[in-house]
């Protein structure tokens, strides 16, 4: 049975030389694709390096006469294309790296000929791209080698070098960004490194300030979001180069108009993600307030555009544990807009009709109001804040109790579920249980209880009467609220330092005492 195919192959081999040299080479190519073994790969790499050397020599010998090194350029370009075959065999990279794969490609990036540099970027994006977890080891070795060969600096340098007016160079920018994204994915620690060593942040920021929307702007927003996500150092750096203002400018373009395409929507989301990340360090919150970020967010909310939800999220980040932002918010009449959202007057578009969207928004607003109560402790602003809750027969307290019952039911259901699980001999320690309950709604419930506590603490008799009426109506007592606040008090973390923790605990104790 096996002899038949063998025979066929022999026939083919016999026939091929007769058919001509072209057939033979295509056969070789087919062989190469199927089985790119180490030898073949080494051969490819060596021939590429040879061509590169030849081209560099030619350029050095005849710097003013392009015609003389044109051939070697074209040959080099062809070799670069052939290197694409390597993208199919990432497992070979660890062996190819010592031979100079990374350093050769890096030097190609700095080539005077923009086409070649673009080809190098495109090639690198292919080589570093893979979704297969088996390839990770090979890709990582390539990534490390590229970093050692200074590829990061060269890539960022190229970003400024390419002019996006030319469509080919715009594509090259896209490829360069792709390489950066892949490298960041392979080695997350590069996020800090690349922003420290290069001017990438500056370039990204400048790119985002452009008025027109295109694919590269969207990609830039994505990269910036990746860089800021888990890196406090980058967040601080971006703040120092006026990043907060830049991002606000980029976002301000959408205060009166909605994004037109899904891609543009995604970019807007990325921009807001960047904004929220950059607001983590305290000094950036200051910059945000100074750059009139609070006002901008309120305007976006008032205009009821698509960015409504993101604006609330940003305000929440800005006001958390930062009293000046809370004060500014009250001063620029933000209470009216915030409480409209609290009462459910949320602009609903076709995409956002889902209940989960509404609920996520409501949770954000509750967090915002809790921050307001935390940040504004006395003075006329406090009176204005409290005054809101008396309006319209204490309708906001009614709404608060509606939320209370809703989230309290959820926590109860989750607790029962956890108790059932415990019975099934699943070991779960207290922290795990607490975290699960937090996720199920206890976090929001604690904030609601905190707000109720603040309102009660104010001493206003009308509000206290209403709270008592509502508690009784829902078969609850003040002790229930106290219990939640006690648990909250015991679990206040010290993320912002021990003094902050003490302050927060003292205040909570005060509120509990008043109830």
């Amino acid at each position: 049975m096996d002899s038949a195919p063998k025979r066929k192959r022999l026939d083919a081999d016999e026939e091929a030389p007769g058919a001509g040299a072209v057939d033979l080479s295509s056969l070789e190519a087919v062989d190469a694709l199927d089985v790119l073994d180490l030898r073949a790969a080494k051969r490819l790499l060596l021939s590429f390096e040879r061509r590169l050397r030849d081209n560099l020599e030619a350029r050095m010998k005849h710097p003013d006469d392009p015609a003389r090194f044109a051939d070697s350029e074209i040959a080099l370009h062809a070799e670069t294309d052939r290197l694409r075959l390597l993208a199919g065999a990432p497992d070979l990279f660890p062996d190819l790296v010592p031979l100079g794969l990374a350093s050769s490609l890096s030097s190609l990036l700095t080539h005077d000929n923009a086409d070649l540099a673009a080809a190098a970027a495109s090639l690198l994006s292919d080589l570093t791209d893979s979704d297969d977890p088996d390839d990770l080891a090979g890709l990582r070795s390539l990534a490390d080698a590229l970093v050692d060969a200074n590829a990061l600096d060269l890539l960022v340098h190229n970003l400024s070098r390419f002019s996006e007016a030319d469509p080919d160079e715009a594509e090259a920018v896209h490829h360069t960004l792709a390489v950066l994204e892949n490298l960041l994915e392979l080695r997350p620690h590069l996020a800090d490194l690349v922003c420290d060593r290069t001017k990438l942040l500056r370039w990204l920021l400048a790119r985002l300030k452009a008025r027109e929307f295109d694919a590269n702007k969207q990609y830039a927003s994505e990269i910036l979001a990746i860089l800021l996500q888990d890196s406090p150092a980058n967040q601080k750096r971006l703040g120092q180069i006026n990043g907060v203002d830049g991002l606000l400018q980029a976002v301000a373009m959408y205060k009166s108009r909605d994004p037109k395409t899904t891609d543009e929507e995604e970019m807007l989301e990325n921009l807001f993600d960047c904004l929220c990340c950059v607001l983590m360090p305290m000094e950036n919150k200051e910059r945000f307030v100074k750059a009139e970020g609070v006002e901008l967010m309120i305007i976006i909310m008032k205009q009821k555009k698509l960015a409504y939800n993101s604006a609330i999220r940003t305000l929440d980040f800005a006001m958390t544990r930062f009293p000046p932002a809370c004060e500014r918010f009250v001063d620029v009449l933000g209470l009216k807009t915030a409480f409209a959202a609290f009462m459910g007057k949320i602009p609903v578009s076709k995409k956002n009709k889902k209940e989960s969207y509404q609920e996520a928004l409501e949770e954000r607003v509750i967090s915002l109001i809790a921050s307001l109560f935390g940040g504004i402790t006395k003075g006329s602003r406090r009176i204005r804040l409290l005054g809101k809750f008396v309006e319209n027969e204490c309708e906001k307290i009614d709404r608060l109790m509606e939320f209370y019952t809703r989230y309290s039911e959820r926590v109860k259901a989750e607790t029962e579920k956890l108790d059932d699980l415990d019975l099934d001999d699943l070991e779960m320690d207290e922290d795990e249980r607490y975290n699960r309950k937090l996720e199920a709604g206890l976090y929001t419930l604690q904030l609601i209880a905190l707000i109720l506590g603040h309102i009660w603490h104010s001493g206003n008799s009308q509000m206290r009467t209403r709270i008592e009426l509502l508690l009784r109506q829902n078969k609850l007592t003040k002790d229930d609220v106290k219990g939640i606040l006690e648990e909250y008090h015991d679990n206040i973390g010290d993320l912002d330092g021990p003094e902050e923790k003490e302050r927060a605990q003292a205040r909570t104790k005060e509120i509990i005492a008043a109830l």
Partner: protein
Amino acid sequence: MEEDIAATKEAANCRGTLLSSATTEEDTAVVGCCGRGRRRVLAVEWDALMLSSFALEQQLHTARQELSHALYQHDAACRVIARLKKERDEARALLALAERQIPASMAGAAPAAVVSNGKRATEDEIGPGGKKIRPGINPVMIEELTECNTMLSAQRKKRQVAPTLAPIDTIERYTQISSHPLHKTNKPGILCMDIHPSKDIIATGGIDTNAVLFYRPSGQILCTLTGHSKKITSLKFVPRDELVITGSADKTVRIWQGNEDGNYNSIHTLNDHNAEVEAVTVHATQKYFVTASKDNTWGFYDISTGSCLSQVGEASGLEGYTSASFHPDGLILGTGTTEAIVKIWDVKTQTNVAKFEGHVGPVMAMSFSENGYFLATAALDGVKLWDLRKLRNFRTISPYDPDTPTNSVEFDFSGSYLAVAGSDTRVYQVANVKLEWNHVKTLPDLSGTGKVTNVKFGADAKYIAVGSMDRNLRIFGLPGDDQMDDAKPSEE
């Protein structure tokens, strides 16, 4: 085999002798001359016989094989038949079992299960014109209705005004003593209300699709009935069995059963109407109720089974019913239509016995007085009072301007007071046909919405419950009367 050989030999011998006798006649000369010739002939004969016997044996062998094949096939066929027979018998048994179970499940309408009339639509008979054929009100029920009516009318004549009834000067001092946010803040509006006749429980139905049962003495919400998909337009208590009936704009009517720990569960969902259900009213026997809908039909139901015994009227897209109420004696039903007409029906025959015209705009509310002969109806032009003995409109009360509709009108149980709700709430003292009905009190609209939708008197008119287009249930009474306690509603 030896027997065969012996047999063939015998045959050969017989043949041989025959042949020899034959040849003797023919070739006496050939044979007769020498024994060697005879032996040669015999040998040839024997060969021929052997060959033929061999052939015969072959044939026998083949025939035997065929026979055995045929027997095997026959055996297999028999097995197949047996198997098929067994399968068929099993299938028949299953079918019989299933058939036996269906009648059982149809007959067992367990009260705990949720029965939905709509699902059974395909099984109901469809009469001429596509209308469902209803069982109708049988003579036994008619007997019941008549008896009830006789008993109640007799009682009515003897009834006196309770001495505990709040007097006019008390009502003049009524003010809001409490407001309770029973419904959602982002979907405000109370559309219907009922007060339990013996317990101090108030039920409100709202735009937020919920019905809330509120125990006034403790200020606690007993239960929230959720399940309707659109606003609740009408609700009524059936005190005898701890039931609540709700009608909704989602075209369904639900019957809710209360249990010992105070929770209510939906036990029936009725889908007999094709448009919003606008009114629910309970018969004096508490065994039947009527629903009226914008689809221009009203349905008479048996409470215990939730089945519609009779549906009266032709479905129409142009007009419909907006309100309905039983006369306290139960033999008369009043319905208000979108065309400003009040239709009076004889319940026993389901015929329209009287039409009251004169209103402007749909008749949104109606109330029969417990005195048995007064009917109050409310529409855009205010309240009209009808004398049922003479079938005429003897008085019209128009407290509001022509653009402000009157949304609710209610006699109190003693028949001494009439409450009217439009842009605020007004209380009148009931007099007779000839005299003026004095305006006793105006309770302002405190909701800020300018629209009071419901008003009901508490027991002995000791308080007045008001619902508006906001989320609050408001209680008006004498200041100092709102002592809240944590007692649970007592069983009476």
